[in-house]
């Protein structure tokens, strides 16, 4: 009995004396970074702007620090010298990349986050329309919880199908995929306000173009990535007395989009994207929705409008040479012989992508 007691005491002693001797990282020594942005400067260096949470008495405040260097790790080392305590970016929830930097190879800059075991690769990433540091500075003047603000902005846009759900890790997967490209939220300053401006189109590792918000929603619907809500506005008339009567606003319900390769001969690849969706009208000041004929007319107009917009969207995407629908991956998986023969980089802008859209009005709110 005595022996067991002794062993237990020894174990207890070891437990207390051996906790995290080498690898402990105490919260009190760390300066937690909540959001950071990366920009490229005129002389080709990287400028990192980081927002550190601090406390003045009980109230949280933001401290903005900047560091310039040739790689992200170097800017981090410089910033570490500027702050008291250890610079801890592992709680970072949002990364902003300046447009100039995003147009270069972003993987080069992000490599450090994929390599470091402590970095949070589930954090959100967005592109700044302009200079990323400016957005953080603007927010730091106004807002106490910057990263929460940005995070909520991205999350609510995700819910309304305006941006794709991506984080640092999911884009890495697509960056390494030769048959797929992706979009990232584009955030900009407008009249001193930070707003969601749409999406940045990426091809391989670099930004190649932009999508507006309605275009982004349409793309996400066509790519079968509808989130909670998806809203559109269509102009259906131009002869009404009241200008507002010309428009109908609606949400898309139960969209189902199928991509089909209808011709896989390497010289003439044809892809059809067929979308069937329900329309629920949310705003239509002209009223008179009880009549079957009016409904049909409106439905037809919406269908045509969406088809036209889809064609424009596909044109934009193909012009940017970004394979956002993952057609390349479809070819690799199910038409490997075609894939061997095509030079996707050159052939993709030339292939035919046909959008086919069928809608049906399924709801009109609680009045006619």
């Amino acid at each position, binding site marked *: 009995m005595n022996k067991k007691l002794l062993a237990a005491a020894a174990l207890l002693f070891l437990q207390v004396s051996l906790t995290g001797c*080498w*690898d402990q990282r105490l919260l009190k020594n760390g300066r937690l970074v909540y959001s950071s942005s990366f920009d490229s400067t005129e002389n080709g260096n990287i400028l990192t702007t980081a927002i550190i949470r601090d406390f003045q008495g009980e109230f949280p405040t933001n401290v903005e620090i900047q560091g310039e260097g040739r790689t992200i790790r170097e800017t981090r080392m410089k910033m570490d010298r500027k702050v008291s305590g250890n610079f801890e970016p592992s709680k970072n929830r949002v990364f902003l990349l300046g447009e100039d930097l995003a147009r270069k190879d972003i993987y080069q800059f992000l490599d450090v986050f994929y390599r470091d*075991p402590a970095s949070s690769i*589930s954090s959100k990433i967005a592109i700044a329309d302009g200079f990323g540091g400016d957005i953080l500075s603007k927010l730091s003047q106004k807002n106490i919880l910057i990263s929460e603000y940005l995070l909520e902005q991205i999350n609510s846009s995700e819910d309304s199908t305006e941006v794709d759900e991506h984080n640092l890790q999911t884009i*890495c997967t697509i960056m390494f995929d030769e048959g797929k490209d992706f979009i990232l939220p584009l955030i900009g300053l407008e009249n001193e306000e930070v707003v969601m401006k749409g999406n940045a189109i990426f091809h391989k590792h670099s930004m190649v173009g932009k999508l507006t918000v309605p275009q982004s929603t349409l793309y996400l619907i066509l790519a079968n990535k509808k989130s909670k809500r998806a809203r559109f506005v269509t102009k259906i008339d131009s002869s009404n007395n009241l200008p507002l009567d010309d428009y109908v606003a609606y949400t898309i319900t139960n969209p189902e989009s199928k991509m089909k390769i209808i011709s896989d001969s390497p010289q003439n690849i044809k892809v059809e994207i067929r979308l069937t969706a329900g329309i629920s009208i949310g705003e239509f000041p002209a009223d008179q929705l009880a009549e079957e004929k009016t409904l049909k007319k409106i439905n037809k107009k919406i269908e045509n409008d969406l088809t036209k917009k889809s064609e424009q969207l596909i044109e934009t995407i193909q012009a940017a040479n970004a394979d956002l629908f993952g057609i390349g991956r479809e070819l*690799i*998986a199910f038409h490997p012989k075609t894939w061997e023969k095509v030079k996707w980089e050159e052939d993709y802008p030339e292939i035919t992508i046909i959008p086919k859209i069928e809608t049906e009005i399924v709801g009109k709110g609680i009045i006619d």
Partner: protein
Amino acid sequence: MNKQTRLTSVQLTFFIIQTQIGVGVLGLPFNVYSASKADAWISILIAGGIIQIIIALLWLLGKRFPSKSLFEYSKLVLGKFAGTFINSGYLIYGVLVSSLILMYSTAIIKSWALILTPEWVIMLLLITPAVLLGKEKVMEICNVYVIVSGLIFLLIIVSIIVLFTYPVDWRYLFPVGASGGIAMLKGAKEAYFSMLGFELLLILYPHFNHNGGRSIIKAASTANLTVTLVYLFLTVVCLVTFSPAEIKIIPQPVLYYVKSLYLQIIERVDLLFASLWIVNVITSLTSYLFLCTESCRYIFERFKKLKRGFCTVFWGILGYIIALLPSKESEMEMFNKWVISGSYVFVLIIPILLLGMAILFKIKEGEST
């Protein structure tokens, strides 16, 4: 309180499962992928099939000498001198595999979690519980194994969460069979390394003999099937979460996909996952130290005073020291290659040799003694 006195065949199943699932599980999809690309999952099935055949061979051998350990009938078949020689071979094999497990698991722990902690500390923390458990009897080891097997379910549950939260792409599995037969076999070879552990059947057979031969082969096959399915599942999850070119640069894909999870309460799920996995590493380590102990006991049979525990501690410390020797990754790779080639000898060649000779010279338990 009823004390269990007879081992059941279920315990044998868990013993083999816990030995097979170990350090390799985190890197398995990567290793197999580097050989057979998107067909990695087929390779795993092939490996499972091949191992099933080997298990059948080992079982046939065990059945000829149902109440005797490998270390006893090796002497019966080959004579005292050659038998002892082979027994010492298994002892060395056990020690080397133990140090290999130590080296690889420490390297992973060091790069993922405890970056600044010195190697010798991590290794000491791993080998201590293994020695403490390895010196016990089969019954005690089995009981612990059965309990900690619950952790394997947790590993699978976390992987299922990944499957549902991550935007997976099933098209990464296609086109099926594009890598070709040879690549698939090479992949199977990679998978085989992570499935080692079933050879323990050689020394466990007599302990479970009272259950009858049929239940033993059933238990061993169940273990092999379980491990194959777990590996198959983890590999498929890796294949659909990571794109083909990405997987090539991620040596521990299982940990990496867990890292990308973001749960509200826990920030780094990979650390949680790694701590569950460490238990599996320790159990594999324990099994190999148990192999050393058993073989040591038969080699030094005439020293009656030699305690079982002393053997385990001695070989455990030796394995620990060997594990500390290589300092570079290239040296570790070389060591790995030796041990793997050695495994063919001990898992395949020697048992086949023994079985062949036993059949040829009609040696069976009871007849020659």
